[in-house]
């Protein structure tokens, strides 16, 4: 709705201490522009967010008014994702939930200590987790059919992947989070972080891969393997790292492995695993080409599978024994902690 913001988050280009031109929309203006773009098929749905103007309550009220105009004046029935600003009062969250398909609260950091480093006026538990609790209650009432999500700024406060993944796993389990988004920190002009090094986009990509393992591949968070610096490997994807770290579990027999085990094999995703599992009811795999046809990535899967007892490749084709030993000694599985909010 506006790029004016009373908050002073250190990573954000819209922070109040950044001197630049501010602008914004009236609810009616924004609703009309959206509906005209929707009519022209530029847009599929609306993701409504804003800087915090005057107060969270004032801005949220305007965002909700925009949605009311869309829903009731323009009869818009499409998708709405409504951002919930930190410190939003519960009654406004409840009103927003009547209009939106999805809501989200951006945590930005994985724990209170890290949040203090980048946004010292936000209280992690009161301003961010508490609104999440209210959103969760709305979902339990049958509202917000697309659930709720969150986003982290990766690396702005020096947090490790271990901290991010631990909090993410906790959110999935305790807050019924639909999914987490990770945004690699890129320093913006006009912020205290100007001139700092940007976080490589590959790190963001690895976090998404690890997140997918937890959401779709039935991985538990403590099965994820980290390097000594408590970050995911940038060289290999998290599933390959798991397979290399747990070599004793491989190679797996394609004709016998259960669905959960199939998901652990590099190069075999949920769809391929489902197809293998379904096809096995009437068919016995005899040739690697059959796996290729059904969508498995053979190059990656080969060292980790047996077909009718026959090995298809070797891990040595990927790395030497010496590299493998070094890899073993320098990685560890994500450790359990009593609270996800403890620093690593």
């Amino acid at each position, binding site marked *: 709705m506006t790029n004016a913001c009373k908050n002073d988050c250190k990573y954000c280009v819209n922070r109040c201490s950044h001197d630049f031109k501010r602008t914004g929309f009236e609810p009616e203006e924004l609703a009309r*522009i959206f509906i*005209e*773009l929707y*009519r*022209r*098929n*530029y847009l*599929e749905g609306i993701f409504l967010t804003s800087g915090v103007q005057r107060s969270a309550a004032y801005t949220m009220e305007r965002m909700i008014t925009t949605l009311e105009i869309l829903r009731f004046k323009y009869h818009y029935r499409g998708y709405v994702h409504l951002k919930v600003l930190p410190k939003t009062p519960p009654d406004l969250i409840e009103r927003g939930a009547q209009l939106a398909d999805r809501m989200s609260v951006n945590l930005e950091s994985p724990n209170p200590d890290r949040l203090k480093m980048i946004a010292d006026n936000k209280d992690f538990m009161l301003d961010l987790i508490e609104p999440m609790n209210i959103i969760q209650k709305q979902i339990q009432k049958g509202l917000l059919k697309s659930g709720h999500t969150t986003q982290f700024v990766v690396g702005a406060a020096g947090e490790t992947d271990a901290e991010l993944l631990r909090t993410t796993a906790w959110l999935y389990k305790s807050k019924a989070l639909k999914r987490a988004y990770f945004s690699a920190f*890129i320093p913006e002009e006009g912020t205290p972080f100007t001139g700092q090094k*940007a976080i490589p*986009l590959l790190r963001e990509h690895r976090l998404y891969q690890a997140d997918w393992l937890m959401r779709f591949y039935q991985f538990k968070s403590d099965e994820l393997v980290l390097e000594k610096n408590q970050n995911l490997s940038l060289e290999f994807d998290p599933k390959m790292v798991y397979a290399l770290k747990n070599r004793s579990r491989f190679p797996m027999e394609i004709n016998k492995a259960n669905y959960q085990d199939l998901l652990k094999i590099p190069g075999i995703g949920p769809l391929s695993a489902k*197809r*293998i599992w*379904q*096809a096995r*009811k*009437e*068919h016995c795999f005899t040739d690697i080409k*059959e796996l290729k*046809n*059904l*969508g498995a990535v053979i190059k990656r899967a080969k060292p980790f599978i047996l077909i009718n007892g026959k090995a298809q490749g070797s891990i040595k084709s990927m790395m030497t024994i010496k590299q493998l030993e070094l890899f073993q000694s320098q990685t560890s599985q994500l450790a359990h902690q009593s609270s996800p909010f403890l620093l690593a």
Partner: protein
Amino acid sequence: MKQISLFNQLDLPCPTRQVQAGLASIISADKEALSKFKHEIFFALLHRDPHKYRVIDQAIQEAKEKGISYVLCKISDNARRFRNLARQVKGERIRAISFMRLQPFDQHGVLFGEFELKHQTAELIMLHFMRRFPRYRILLLFGEEAYLGKDKQIYRHKIEARKITLPKAPDEFEKYWLAFYRSQFISERKNLRYLKQMIPKKYWKWVTELREFGIG
């Protein structure tokens, strides 16, 4: 203008007798798999490839001999070809409804759009827009065929594309769209490889904002 059939929730009986006879001979306890198989045949039949019938017949034969899962799971080369036919048709539909821009002619209550199609997906695309914008008449131009959707019916008309001239008035909302896109663009995140994966190059000319950034 010729009025043509409106697909009924994508659940039409397959249009060739041969295919119908083949399907009738498949006895499957798995109703869900059979329904999915029919669904795939429906889409494969809309493919432009003249050899599609041979691939579909062979898929039905394989389903009879080895089970529907064998085909749906793409175990054999032919099963993979069969599912690729369906996938390409579905892909074209999704891309057309994602990247086609519509131009409103409010005095006539019409939304007009233009796109190039390879497969027989025009009716599916019409259906999508007719459901999305029930208060408008939808007029879409696909090469030398114009489709008009009104009163829940679709009409097709053969035309010579070069005779069609539509007023392209400057649209203030297109400017707003480009301004919005520009404000969201992060140069550090520009990833052409990913872009090509999401929007194949042949569709770039339809995506206004790509031209703006010297991509299209």
